[in-house]
């Protein structure tokens, strides 16, 4: 018999083998990266809203406290989305006829609510309670980021389970004194761990990693 294959097939076959391996690795890591990327997690992706409400302006410039609008954050699992009325409390005097605020005024006239785009969304089977986190000294900014620097709201963290676990396993790394919970400027001290351990004791913070802590 003559040769079936050209000498080059040797190289080709080896290249295919090792190439295949490399390709596999690339694909897997690629998928993992995509999964962690803003494309999936929406981290840092500013969402458009019916009214271009700027936390940067209201929190950063005007210095309005979180709780003025998110009234139930200390009492309830749900922080509360302010009713149109809350907006109108000020905007009947301030910018009473700015076109930008027309949707708000319309909603107030018609009683039809403004349809905000949800930014922080957890799957239905995750039960998160704002009030207890706030009570135990987890700052708004810890999860929601520097809202006072967000013209439009975006998601600061992935909200993936392992992200939650980071804190639930080692709260001392993130906890802050209660008086600073609603502060945006608060900077974690250099000795956060020392402080953290102190607060963990003081606030009786447990490391809750049981499934039923969040899933029921």
């Amino acid at each position: 018999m003559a040769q079936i294959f050209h000498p080059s097939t040797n190289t080709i076959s080896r290249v295919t083998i090792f190439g295949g391996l490399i390709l596999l690795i690339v694909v897997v890591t690629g998928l993992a990266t995509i999964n962690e990327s803003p494309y999936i997690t929406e981290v840092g992706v500013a969402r458009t809203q019916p009214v271009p409400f700027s936390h940067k302006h209201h929190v950063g410039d005007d210095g309005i406290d979180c709780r003025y609008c998110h009234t139930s954050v200390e009492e309830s699992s749900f922080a509360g989305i302010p009713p149109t009325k809350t907006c109108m409390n000020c905007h009947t005097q301030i910018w009473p006829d700015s076109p930008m605020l027309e949707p708000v005024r319309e909603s107030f006239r018609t009683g039809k609510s403004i349809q905000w785009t949800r930014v922080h969304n957890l799957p239905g089977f995750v039960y998160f309670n704002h009030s207890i986190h706030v009570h135990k000294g987890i700052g708004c900014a810890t999860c929601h980021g520097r809202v006072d620097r967000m013209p439009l709201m975006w998601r600061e963290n992935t909200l993936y389970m392992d992200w939650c676990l980071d804190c639930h396993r080692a709260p001392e790394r993130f906890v802050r004194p209660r008086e600073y919970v609603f502060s945006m400027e608060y900077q974690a001290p250099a000795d956060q761990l020392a402080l953290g351990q102190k607060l963990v004791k003081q606030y009786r913070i447990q490391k809750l990693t049981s499934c039923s802590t969040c899933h029921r």
Partner: protein
Amino acid sequence: MSNGMDPAGLLGIGQQSAGGREYWRSLEELAGTEAFKDLIGNHLPRHAAAFTSAMDRREFLTLMGASLALAGISGCLSPAPAPPDEKIVPYVNQPEALVPGKPLYFATAIPVEGYGRGVLVESHMGRPTKVEGNPQHPASLGATDAVTQASVLELYDPDRSRVITNAGRVATWDAFFSALNVELESQRVTQGAGLRILTETVTSPTLAAQLQEILRIFPKAKWHQFDGGGGDYAHQGARMAFGQPFETLYRLEEADVIVSLDADFLLRSPASLRYAREFINRRRIPGGSDEANRLYMIESTFSLTGSNADHRLAIAPSAIPQLARTLAARVSVQISAEQPAISPAQEKWLGALVKDLQAHRGRSAIMPGEYQPAIVHALAHAMNDALGNIGKTVFYTDPVAVNPTNHAESFRELVRDLEENAAQVLIILGGNPAYTAPAELDFAGHLVTSNFNVHLSLYEDETSAVCHWHIPQAHYLESWSDVRAYDGTVTIMQPLIAPLYGGRTAHEILAAVAGQAERASYEIVHDYWRGQNKAKNFDAAWRTALHDGFIAGSALSPRNVKAKPATSFETSEPKRASSGAATKNPPSLEVIYRPDPSIIDGRFANNGWLQELPKPLTKLTWDNAVLMSPATATRLGLTYRVGGSGGEHGTIYADVVELEYDGRRTRGPAWIVAGHADDCVTIHLGYGRRRAGRVGTNLGFNANILRTLDTLWHGASIAVRKTGAQYALACTQFHHLMEGRDLVRAGTIEQYRKNPKFLIERESEKEAPGTLYPGYKYDGYAWGMSIDVNACIGCNACVAACHAENNGPVVGKQEVLRGREMHWIRIDRYHRGEPNNPETYHQPVPCMQCENAPCELVCPVGATTHSQDGLNDMVYNRCVGTRYCSNNCPYKVRRFNFFLYSDFKTESLKPLRNPDVTVRSRGVMEKCTYCVQRINQAKIAAEKEDRVVRDGEIEPACQQACPTRAIIFGNINDPQSRVTQLKTQPLSYGLLTELNTRPRTTYQAKLRNPNPEIENG
């Protein structure tokens, strides 16, 4: 691959966010959904407003403030206004105003067959989601029954009628009211000679006032009463004995000996919840005393109460009045008629009973059954009188029901009037007489003679179909009204939500009849009570009444009564025209009709929760059957076959029999019940509905075809023929023997007195099973539960409550047949002793929360694990559905979603869901969690106040509903907690502990208190 949302999104887990709890997560989203707008409808300014602008407390209060004024205004605006905004006063244990994500609780009452039971309703953002008992209400004491739990499903039932129909065509309220007015005009001329109003039992003072008002306007009009579930014999009996229709009340806590003449007072009584509590309180052995009351039951069918009796005498219904006479004679009631001899066995039994009664004069109670003829009631009164019980254990008050009448007679009269065309205008308020009334009368047929009739009801049912007009009724959770409890205590009923389907209350209809079509029921009720209360502080009183859930001191005060001599009535035979032409061949038997334990007379036929609830003793679901004793079955050559799929935990093929009474026939499956009296059969009503809705239509068979007005509850002779056909019945537990396993441990108080440890000591697991592993230390909370088998009466309240609290799905008969029902807690029923009169045990079985949980060990993905508090967590969203855990669960308490059982489509059911519990999707395992959502809420609340959770602060749904407090939950690390103390009682034992599962749920053994004279020899 983030958090299990990917393909599952298509298959439910994702959708469930839309269904389950999204509602309060973002109100904007909520108000956005088209579906929700439909749901809330245009009928309700307040809620619409509340929802569209995330009602904050300022707005909430303004709404409340404005409501009264609004009521007036909108009243004037249109003849048929949407119900205006009205004030609601939240209950104490809730934040001062609505906080998004936090439930509110409101007090009202559920009217069941006319009588009220106080309830607290949990409301999430204006959506009632759960009904609990009102601890301060005399008829509830904080407990509920299955029907009450399921009533919230009825509220959201998509099959409820949504439109006014005239001769089947959709009409409007305006059209109806004008048509009504035309008729009424013509009636005015004749002083309402042709006007008839048909109601069920009425206890509502306001409704009574309205009726009287109407009868004043139309002096010749007539008010008839007919209740499918009751017969009002009690009042007739009282009339016999006292000359007045007194209400009879019992104080069972005072009674050492209770004799029930077919009285199913633990289940079928307006006071059943209270009676159950009082009855069990006297049997709670691990409560210091080792004394207990003793219950003698004389009945024909095997009732729930009978299954809890210390001694049962099962005799044919026709024999009961006779036996009552004999008994009466023995307890020295003057009886003229001489007593026929009775069998030596009965003689012995009766002898012991009489001795017991004599020994407990003034501390005993004779309770006649609701469905026993008046004479039995009268005799019972006489006996109580003779035994000196009156004023001690038995009390009499004025009747709670307004104008008590013999329903049979009242209805007969109505039909006669229809026949004679005397009733031209017929207004039917609630009820479903076209179905519930005996077929012999052909009520439907006669209706055509009247020239105007209207039916007000929740559903467009059999009666609506034959009436000229059908108008949708408002559900009790949508209504302003008032109702009296068994002892007369009044509750002002307040709506939790404005009518979803634009229903009206009976008040509004009667107001229209009285010529005030525009009056809303809030006004009517409010004004009535303003009229009653002359004091200037009415508003405060009104507020308190709403807030507390009842009007303090409105209970009727006991009357001291004098019984007539028995000789005056004791001979009057109960009317029982044995018309059935006693045929010898085929064998003719006596027949007993009883309301179904779950769906009563069919009024709850479309309630999936109740249909799927295993009936207390038979454990049947979705069907009724012809119940009979084993002996009778053998005599008729009837048998059964265990199905090949499902089997004893699902499918039983029962022989179908043909029943004939007075030439009217129907067919139904025969079901053999140990302990049923021989030579008689029991048939439960409420089935065979033709227009119940998509759930309840065409289930079982209709016994009303056979009934006559004379034999409403007991028939003399019914022919029962075997047909040869077989019918698959869905039975969740057919195997009633313990196979020598120590599942329910039982003994007698006698044994307990001798040696309190007698049950534990005979057990194998005295030596604790060893383990190689160190085992876990639970240093925080350690949740545990203790279930008192001795206190469990098997009423199913816990099962229904669990289902309601945990968003349990309804799987349907086909799936139950396959053994796939989804109840997280079940009540196992075991028999012991001879089949004609067995001992019965009821054992609630939830998840045992084993410390060494076998299920966790075998789960490949860690979907079920142990929490720091020692809970056996079930993580639905992690579950891949290998079902290995269920195989390895010795208690078989795990339930699996073989299909997409939870209804993610029907919009109207979504607001019903408990937002704190995940709605399970297809392919995941689920099980009892000790209501972990309540645990977590309590823990968070405690943490925020920097304290520990108090004992009793957490009540799982089952414990909360239990009428007898048989279930106690708590922290077993706390030596002071009730659960810990119960677990240290000598009667405390664990289920299958020899497997070293170390269950956190343990049981208290059952103790019976038999009469030695009957027991031995």
